[in-house]
Each structure stands twice: as C-alpha cells, then as structure tokens.
C-alpha cells in the first residue's frame, strides 16, 4: 500500500535540536519527525508537542525519518497521546519495525493511545 503523501516542509518547524527536527504537515494534518529521540530530548519533545497539538483533531505523525527512538522517547510520545486523548488519537505512519518491536516488548502496544494509521503499510 502506498504511503500517504505528506505536504512538503512548510517552514513551520515546531521543534528543533541537534538531533531532531519536528515540522508541521498539512496533508494529512500532523507532524513530521526527522532524526533521533533519546534521553537528551524526549522530555523537551513531550512538552513542546502537547502545546503544538492543541486544537488539532486526529494527529498524523510521519515517522518515516525517525531513525532512532529509545524507551524514553516512546514514553514521551505515549504521554503526548494520553494528553490529547481520549477523543483524539495519534496516528503513526512509517514507524520503523525495530521501534515497533521495542514498543511491544516493553508492553505498551496494547494501549489505545496510539494507532498505526490504516493507510500505512505496517498498520496493525
């Protein structure tokens, strides 16, 4: 199945540090992650995103260029998902299979907090 077409970078960078850039995307409405999330930026990302996501409906996260995400990063995304819910969801696109495996091993795959978007190849 084809990946959804994300809009090109709009200049609306909502978060940037030396190993991660997060930009808004417009179609679908959401955020694109490029880089790595670990202990050094997971806390900052969690606070930044909660602020940014106010007002959005379901939020599509383009994670195709998220090349690394540690347990603290997954926890940060989960915290964001829980903060925007319960009526809205984070829809994950292009999550690397090894990160998905980490989510399952550490026992966070059963929550409804994030969903693998139906238009994505590795959707569940």
């Amino acid at each position: 199945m084809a990946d959804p077409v994300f809009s090109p970078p709009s200049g609306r960078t909502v978060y940037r540090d030396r190993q991660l850039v997060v930009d808004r995307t417009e179609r679908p409405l959401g955020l694109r992650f490029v880089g790595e999330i670990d202990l050094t930026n997971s806390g900052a990302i969690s606070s930044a995103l909660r602020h940014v996501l106010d007002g959005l409906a379901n939020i599509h996260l383009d994670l195709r260029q998220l090349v690394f995400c540690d347990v603290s990063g997954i926890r940060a995304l989960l915290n964001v998902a829980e903060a925007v819910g319960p009526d809205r969801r984070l829809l994950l696109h292009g999550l690397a299979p090894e990160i998905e495996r980490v989510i399952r091993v550490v026992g966070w795959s059963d929550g409804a907090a994030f969903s693998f978007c139906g238009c994505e190849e590795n959707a569940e």
Partner: protein
Amino acid sequence: MSTATLERFRHEALLYSDWTEFVAGTVRFIREGLDRHEPVFVVESQQKIEMLHAALGDSADKVTFANMAEVGANPARIIPAWQDFVAAHADATLLRGIGEPIWAGRTPEELVECQRHEALLNTAFAAGRAWWLLCPYDTAHLPQEVIAEARRSHEFVSTSQSIDLSKDFQSGHLSRTPLDLPFAEPTQTMTRFSFNRSSLSALRGEVRRAAESRGLSAGRLADFVAAVNEVATNSVVHGGGRGVARVWKDRDLVVCEIKDTGNFDDPLADRRRPDPEAASPRGLWLANHLCDLVQIRSGPAGTVVRLHIKVESHPRIAVLSDLN
C-alpha cells in the same frame, strides 16, 4: 512425598544419568500432577518433549510444553515465563513445572547466567503461590561442579529413586562461587568509547559501526544498538552520569560491555515484566528481549553489563511470540 502439604514454592533438582532415569523421574512427577488436576508446564528440549509425548500417551494433551531453546535461550527470560504460567492459573491450588535450563552445550557465559537464574528462582517465588518446579540435571554430561551448584540452588534434590532435602541449599543470594566470579577480561581486539549524557547519539553510531564491522547482521544491528543505548542511558541517569563502552567479537558473538560507577542491589531488576501503566524502568527488560544473553554484575566498585548478540541470527522467537 505427598504434595498435600505444599504451601510455598518448592525448587527441586532431578539428577538423572540416562534417558530411562529422566523419563522415570519426570513422567512420575507429571502423572502425579495430572491425577490431582494440577496445571503442568514443561519447558524442555524438543527431543525430550517428543520423548515425554511418547511416554505420556494421551495424557500429554493435558500438559503444556515449550521449547527451552526458545524460552530460555537467554535464561533471564525464563522467570517471566514461569510467572506467566502461575498467573494464568489463578484458581489452581498447586501447579507443577519442569524446566531444564542447563545442558552440556551451554557456553561458559550462558552456564553461569543459568546458574544465577536457578538461584534467583528462589527469590522470585519465595513469597508467592505454592508451586513445584522440577529441574532435571544430566549427571552423565554435566561437570561435577555444575551438579554441586545445583545442590546449592535447589532446596530438594531427587533421583528416580529418592527425594532428599539438600544440605547444601543456600537460597537465593548470589554471593558465592561461581555466581559472583568477575568477568574474564576479553582478549580480542576491542573498540572503546567513553560516553555521557551529551554523547549518547555518538555512542550509538560508534557501537553500530563496531558491531557491523564485526559481522553483526543488518537485521540485529538496530536491536543491539537499542539495547546498548538503554543500558548506557541507565548509566547516565542512575550510574554516575557517564560510562565506558567496549565492543569486541567473541566466537560467534558480538559483545558490548557498559561499565559505570553506579551500584544497584536488585538482581531481579532485568526480569520483572514492566507494568504497562507505570513509568517503571524498562531498559534491562528490553535488553534481555533484544539480545541473546545479558550479564550484569553490580557492587560497590560499580556496575558492568555485558550484552551478547549472535552475529548470524534473527530476532528471537521469544520476541516474535510476544508480538501476537
């Protein structure tokens, strides 16, 4: 011995010297459990599972079997499997298990981790439900000192003829030879990096390159790097803020060692299933499920963690079954 009075975890080594003794000891144990309608879970080699199927006939259908080569390839995954078994039968007054984690082909590193696992079973189940675990030991193929350690880690020792209290039993503590022997210093060419909070990303790149150049397959690189990163993160958060990583190749393994100045006294920390709701630690649990073996030694001088991964390998079956 009657099991009617069993009120707590009973850890028993079954010493056998040939297949006849193995079958006699295990089948009697299984049948006694089935007669009492007790859940029975057997974690053995595929060959022994087939042998038990043949010996038990139709009764085998009432027994749950699992392959120790999958469940216990990394012995730190065995206690969670037993915990799942006990938890799955909340209504049973007594349960029985057979588990043979130690066989002659184990590497020295796997062997000592299996021996630590056997000792830790006493700690893990000391305060819990009553169940009876029988651990077969092959006296014909295992060294005498392995049998001697089995007598220290098991409260009871039986043969196909007898059951005795082990006078050598030392419960769950790990401060004895061989369980607390320091790691051997590697003789192979090593790549070494110091790291702190601001160099975790660089550490991941270095470990990836070091493991790749030592032949680790592309399919396991990400798992290995993720495991190393979590252990190094523990050093940054709990272990003094910094650490030293070393990578080398040993036989068919790539090993990464993480050393820091922290000290923790919780030998079950790496095998406690994380609570999905809680912000509980997950790094060591993850490492145990991504790597083929994890060795942890922690004391006043600091903590050393060695992560082992096979160069020609696929993600473990145990991980894949977790996916379902």
